[in-house]
């Protein structure tokens, strides 16, 4: 039994999102035919958010809700899965200059996994840092598809993946309700807990999936009326 999870989402717990978790789950239900997502992982910016009990919502909508973090390092932004007390004590998640190699090694030692996200994005993606710094060690996977990518960003991510042999994930990076589930990750295994997710991410048995609508040209743009 496979599982499709949106591994990169931001709720109203992130300062740049106003999206309630319940609205995300309702939107997934509404758009199930286009975006058949089984669950989401909340990856709030620069924090591990323990707030809120989503079990009732999970039951109501039949959608899994897991928690992780998006942190900022000297190699760009990275998702941390399997966050535990040891990690929260070891690292200040609000620090925007975390050392990426230390983070990757230490999180792995403490039972989690770090996945660099939107690596093809200028300034905050790993690709640009790889142009003038040594490659990182012990990277298992990177985010290949990001729902917020501009033209060329996913292509640069694909270049990194091809060159270094990383496993590839996908996530919407949604900050708006209606953008949830646009990109996701299809696991070959059944995932029910964060421990399952970490184990599967390490096992590399997954692929990114793209539910973005095909881009189409604007046929007849209407000029604004001059006043």
């Amino acid at each position: 039994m496979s599982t499709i999870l949106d591994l990169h989402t931001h709720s109203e717990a992130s300062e740049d999102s106003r999206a309630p978790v319940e609205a995300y789950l309702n939107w997934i239900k509404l758009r199930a035919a286009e975006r058949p997502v089984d669950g989401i992982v909340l990856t709030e910016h620069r924090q591990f958010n323990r707030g809120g009990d989503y079990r009732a919502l999970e039951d109501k909508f039949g959608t899994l809700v897991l928690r992780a973090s998006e942190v900022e390092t000297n190699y760009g932004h990275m998702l941390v899965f399997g966050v535990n007390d040891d990690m929260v004590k070891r690292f200040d998640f609000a620090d925007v200059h975390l050392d990426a190699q230390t983070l990757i090694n230490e999180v792995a030692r403490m039972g989690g996994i770090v996945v660099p996200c939107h690596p093809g994005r200028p300034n905050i993606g790993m690709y640009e840092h790889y142009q003038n710094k040594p490659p990182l060690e012990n990277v298992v996977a990177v985010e290949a598809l990001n729902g917020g990518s501009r033209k060329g960003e996913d292509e640069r991510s694909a270049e990194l993946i091809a060159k270094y042999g990383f496993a590839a994930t996908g996530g919407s990076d949604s900050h708006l309700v209606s953008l949830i589930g646009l990109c996701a990750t299809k696991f070959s295994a059944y995932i029910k807990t964060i421990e399952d997710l970490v184990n599967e991410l390490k096992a590399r048995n997954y692929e990114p999936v793209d539910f973005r609508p095909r881009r189409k040209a604007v046929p007849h743009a209407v000029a604004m009326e001059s006043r």
Partner: protein
Amino acid sequence: MTKFDQINIGDTLGPLELFVSKDQCRAYAKLMGMGEGAGRFTDDEAAKKEGLPGMILPGNMSLGLLSKLVTDWIGSSNAWLKQMSTTYRVPVQPDHAITIHGFITNKNPAEQTAEIDVWMENEEAERLVTGTATVEFRK
């Protein structure tokens, strides 16, 4: 005229397809007192000196265009745009086609409010400006 009971989560607003010319951008900047000392809104070369690809729309102009989608939808309904928040992700360039999308994402019957996602896209379907709006229907 739209009533609160008639709207549904998932309903769409627009899309609104627009083409903002450089002259319109300059006129807005001038009207808003931005012309002097803010060449990025009026002059390609000045914008390029700042590392931009060319002239860009003032943020308030993008905000106004996003608001237009919502207020057009409200029309003559007994409702008002109560709150709007925006995130500027990518500079918006004039002389390009832009499309503005909206979706109703939540309803609060007790408050008689609707939450709306809005965003502006370019020809490549890249989201340039995103936001959320709250519309309150009067009881």
